[in-house]
């Protein structure tokens, strides 16, 4: 009886619907947007990078990998500036990511505790993030101005030391950019850490306290390991955001002095829109994008292992 009643349920799931359009219809809206705004532009960008592309020309000459080769041929401006600005950006990332993660973690650890004015301080640290990059940039440019900046004025007041030419000294020009970026974005990471911290079961700390663990030990053996997944997320997103450095150095130093703080995105923009070399800029965009992919994948693999081992503990 039963066997005759339910033959359909014995069929492998989905068989009945083979050939049905329904699931694809559900996918269609997203797929359409995905193709229109992601796949097609990437494909067209690749086409542009392989041609000497100018809308006003009747013929878009096919040049193959010329613009890619420029990036690997010593002596071309593209070779010189692409790698130099890529190094600038990498330097910024190497300096700012550890600071941004550490500062966010430190602030979160402080503001997680029930201290007086906790909500107020959380807001204070989160607030700068809502500013646009131009407002933030102008603010920090003024703060670090060689002559009229608040930082030099404070130095003068406290130590009487002569002003430092922050904005026009290579190396030092990074200080306002890094400090400004931390001030601007640390609140976001802090919020992520705060959320993660409130998810750690309180019983762990109670047990540790009973065993006589100090605050430092509790942080070292409970908080930090439990935060590993969120740290992975924070490090990867912060590193990617740092590699996309653009507005801060554009507004604060305009890439100067002598291109020492110019970011790779800023250079790609310059090549595309100031020099009207769209194809060359497209090629750079692909090379840079590929690097970001590889970097993210590597970071993921490396840290996923940590997350796994942390979860196994």
């Amino acid at each position, binding site marked *: 009886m039963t066997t005759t009643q339910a033959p359909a349920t014995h069929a492998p799931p989905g068989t009945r619907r083979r050939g049905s359009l329904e699931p694809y219809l559900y996918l269609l809206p997203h797929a359409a947007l995905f193709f229109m705004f992601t796949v097609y532009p990437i494909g067209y960008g690749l086409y542009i990078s392989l041609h*000497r592309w100018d809308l006003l020309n009747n013929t878009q000459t096919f040049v193959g990998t010329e613009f890619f080769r420029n990036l690997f041929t010593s002596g071309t401006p593209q070779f010189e500036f692409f790698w130099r600005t890529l190094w600038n950006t990498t330097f910024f990332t190497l300096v700012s990511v550890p600071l941004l993660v550490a500062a966010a973690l430190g602030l979160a650890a402080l503001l997680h505790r029930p201290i007086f004015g906790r909500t107020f301080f959380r807001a204070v640290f989160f607030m700068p993030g809502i500013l646009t990059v131009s407002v933030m940039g102008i603010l920090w440019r003024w703060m670090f101005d060689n002559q009229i900046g608040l930082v030099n004025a404070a130095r003068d007041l406290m130590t009487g030391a002569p002003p430092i030419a922050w904005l026009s000294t290579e190396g030092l020009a990074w200080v306002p950019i890094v400090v400004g970026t931390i001030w601007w974005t640390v609140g976001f990471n802090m919020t992520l850490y705060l959320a993660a911290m409130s998810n750690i079961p309180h019983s762990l700390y109670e047990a540790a306290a009973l065993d006589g663990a100090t605050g430092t030990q509790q942080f070292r053996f409970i908080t930090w390991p439990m935060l590993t997944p969120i740290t992975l997320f924070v490090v990867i997103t912060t590193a990617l955001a740092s590699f996309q450095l653009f507005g801060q150095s554009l507004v604060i130093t305009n890439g100067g002095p*002598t291109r020492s703080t110019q970011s790779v995105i800023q250079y790609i923009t310059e090549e595309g829109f100031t020099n009207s070399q769209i194809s060359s800029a497209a090629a750079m965009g692909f090379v840079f994008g590929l690097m970001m992919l590889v970097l993210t994948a590597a970071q993921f693999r490396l840290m996923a292992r940590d997350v796994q081992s942390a979860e196994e503990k």
Partner: protein
Amino acid sequence: MNRLARSLSLALLLAGTATAQKVSLTYLHGFTGPDRPVMEALIKKFNDTHPNIEVRGQAQPWGTTWQQLPALVASGRAPDVVVINEDQITGFIARGALTPLTAPEMKTAGLDKNKFFGPLFKTADYKGQSYGVPISSVAYVMFYNKDLMRKVGLDPNKPPRTRAEFLRAAQLCTVDKSGKNATQAGFDPKNLDTWGVSLYNNWVGARAAYAAILQNGGAMTDRNQNAAFNSPQAVSAVQFLVDLVQKHGVARPNATEEAELAAFSQGKVCMFPSGQWYLDRFESQKMNFGVTFMPRVGGSVRDAAWGGSSHLTLPRQPASYSAAKRRAALEFMAWMAQPEQNLAWTATGSLPTQAAVAGNPRFETAAISGIFDRLNNVYATSGFPWVGQVMGPFDAAWEAAYLGKKPVAKALNDGVAEANKQIEQARKNFR
């Protein structure tokens, strides 16, 4: 009945011709700031006085236009009239986005290029043909503090014109905290109270060097449109400016535009060369200042200052484009460039585009009229299709020289080498 039919058909005919004659033009411009209402009032005035033409203005940021124009032209949907700025115009001409204004067309429309300031009109010329009519203009000028000048014994009504006068004024104005100026023994350049002149590192600051090079008979590019701002004339002109910092100590090293602007506003700097767009700011501060043309710091070959400008242009249109539209567009351009309209436009802070406007009594007591005797010597960065490739390295060269990171000749040579490599590549786009 017959009469009725006849008058009816006559009325229809009239209506028909009236609508056929009414030409509608699209007009794209980048005046999106406080200048927008002025432009819109002018468009309205044109429409009110020209029943056969209707201009529909559209304001959008300049950068958007530079990015969209190629696509609009390529697809045959370009606006009828587009305003293009001096640093973009030659690039668009060389890429074939614009059409030349022929001599007969200009004559019919009543456009006489001789009435405009020569270099300003030439900004939109390329290979012997005109592509645009100037309607707006800004320029590098030199603001000076009259009180400070008087204090050190200079005549505030006779601002410096030559290199020698300029250097002397700068030295007298540079006073250290013990009251000694830069010409006196015991002068301490490390402890200054007031500075002679403002120089600084960004692109605006680099425009002083641009003027100096032209003044000395140099140029940004050579006959083949390659970068050439490292000629002996250019090196000597820029060296003089760098010496003001490094040798004479009359200009601050490591200065930023903001710091110099603040210093001039606070009466700490005698002479502040910069864009005429700061006029409003100093006027509202009730400063006792004057405005003069950039003195001949670079040399004595000619007067020169950098200027920017906006030009009315006619983009390339599909073959089916109506001749009536082009005629109407030219009529609109000619009308917009007339002295009356240009005078109205100067309310936005623009300089006059022609002598007839500069001579208007309205300017008699205006501070800005201090530069009007030499408005015919304002030169844009134009005439070569790769302004970005030339001016970017030039600005960087100025920065390196001014900050003392490189000797002047090396800075300019490096800049030219970089620019020419970029130009070599850009050239391939124009085959």
